[in-house]
């Protein structure tokens, strides 16, 4: 893969740092049940609001639940939502973007609709949709994907347009390659870089927005562990139990920061021209 080859040559420091942090986070969320003896949702009335100690590494919350355990399961939820949203936006944004970019007959209409969709800030669309469909993991994933796919579609579209009239695509067409073959074999393969960069930023955004939705009470429903909902709980106890609010916040920042860093690194590495094309 192009990415690995380039990475071996340049060893971008952003990418190295962020990938190390992300691997640790992925490890924590994958093996959460093995890393802690506590249950993330079981109450323990005797150990309410305990400060950090040897038994409770990051203290306990107002129901006596271990904060460290809830963070592990919370970041697990964030990663699940983020991954699913990235997958769905790449699929839907990809389909719409390729259609609009490749078939110029429908381009104008699709673009007008995407323009209108992009007039709504993602978080507003997501809040409204989550409120319609009700709280829950699947609904947030769908709401966030719906909010993010227009931007992905536009990026795919402009990549497709910049590639579809290049000589090598023309020659493939002239020897009789079908549209589907041209799209998959030549166009998508060569527009992978901007898609990867945007997907990384979408991952970061999805984690932030899932937390915001859960914070507002239209996301993951309690008692299921979610970093955003933990902040809602912690709000009331901010003065007596500051560890409750610090821990989930720092976890979100770590995950989002390393994803943004990775996005920046990928952009530098894969797309030296992207900066110029964005400006036009």
């Amino acid at each position, binding site marked *: 893969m192009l990415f690995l080859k380039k990475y071996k040559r340049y060893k971008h420091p952003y990418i190295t740092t962020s990938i190390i942090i992300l691997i640790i986070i992925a490890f924590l969320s994958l093996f959460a049940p093995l890393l802690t003896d506590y249950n993330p949702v079981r109450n323990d009335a005797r150990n309410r609001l305990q400060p950090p100690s040897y038994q409770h590494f990051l203290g306990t919350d107002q129901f006596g639940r271990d904060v460290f355990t809830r963070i592990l399961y919370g970041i697990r939820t964030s990663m699940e939502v983020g991954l699913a949203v990235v997958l769905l936006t790449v699929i839907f944004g990809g389909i719409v973007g390729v259609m609009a970019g490749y078939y110029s007959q429908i381009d104008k209409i699709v673009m*007008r609709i995407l323009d209108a969709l992009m007039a709504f800030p993602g978080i507003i669309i997501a809040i409204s949709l989550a409120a*319609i469909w009700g709280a829950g993991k699947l609904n947030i994933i769908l709401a966030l994907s719906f909010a993010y796919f227009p931007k992905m579609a536009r990026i795919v579209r402009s990549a497709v347009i910049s590639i579809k009239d290049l000589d090598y695509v023309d020659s493939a067409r002239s020897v009789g390659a079908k549209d589907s073959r041209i799209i998959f074999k030549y166009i998508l393969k060569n527009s992978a870089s901007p898609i990867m960069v945007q997907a990384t930023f979408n991952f970061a955004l999805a984690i*932030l927005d899932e937390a915001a939705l859960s*914070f507002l009470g239209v996301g993951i429903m309690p008692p299921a562990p979610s970093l955003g909902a933990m902040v809602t709980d912690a709000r009331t106890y901010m003065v007596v139990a500051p560890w409750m609010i610090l821990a989930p916040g720092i976890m979100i920042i770590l995950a989002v920061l390393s994803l943004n860093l990775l996005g920046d690194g990928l952009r530098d590495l894969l797309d030296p021209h992207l900066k110029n094309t964005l400006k036009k």
Partner: protein
Amino acid sequence: MRNYIIKRLLLLIPIIFIVAVIAFFITNLMPGDPVRVILGNMATETEVARVKESLGLDQPLIMRFFRWLANIIKGDFGESLYLNAPVAKVLIERMRPTFLIAILAEILGISVGILLGILAAVNHRKILDQFSITVSLLGISIPSFWLALMLMFVFSVRLGWFPVSGYEPFIEVGFSSFRYLILPAITLAFMQAGLIARMTRSAMLDTLKQDYIRTAKSKGLSTKIIVFKHALKNSMLPVITVIGHNFAVLLGGTWIVETIFVIPGTGFMAINAIMRRDIPVIQASIIFVAVIYVILNLFVDLSYAFLNPKIRYH
């Protein structure tokens, strides 16, 4: 240029139409029958039917959409189901704190962002660059609701510099009204500053590589003059785009920040409306943000022509 402006204005019509379609259908798919919510559980079927008829809810969705659209064009967003007032009037009343927060945040974000961006570009690959990159990355990575609570905890609860929450209008208390708005504005400004600093830095780095900058340098001009007199203006184009695109994000951010600081603006109203299924208010709030986004971006596009005569429109 005039033709271009007319063309862009005409293009607003289909976009705002689609915006209205989205706003209408999103809100009308909401679960929970608003009539049942108004009347309570004890209402009989005939009562429900009567209220539905009086609200026009018994007609097919498409018919309702066009009647609703016609009313909106006349500036009538309907009656709020809870506030007992016309939505348009409430929205206008509630706009003031929202706009004050947004503008304060935007001014703060732009000045800090551009300053950080310039510092980073001028000191490329030095400590100041690293510092500025870190701050701007933090700006786009810290969840605004968490930052809001942290600021509230430190500056209101512990230090007591600002009120913890609430709002008093400017007309009643004068300038001390701003004490309620500063923390919300800083919360939103932090993210804006991050976005703007990143864009300023990369645009500035591109500009500083240009030939005319080298000429200016070889003439012996000081860095200060080169940066502020020659480079800055030419790096502003992408920065203005970022500002235009993100003002709507900022308004979206007021939904969360106003809810945390209990400021009776449009965002607080929107979140409450969503929790109570107050459909006319939700529709108006969504359209409000989208229309501001569309208009602002028209201005951004038009400003290109003024800033860069090289860009020709046909």
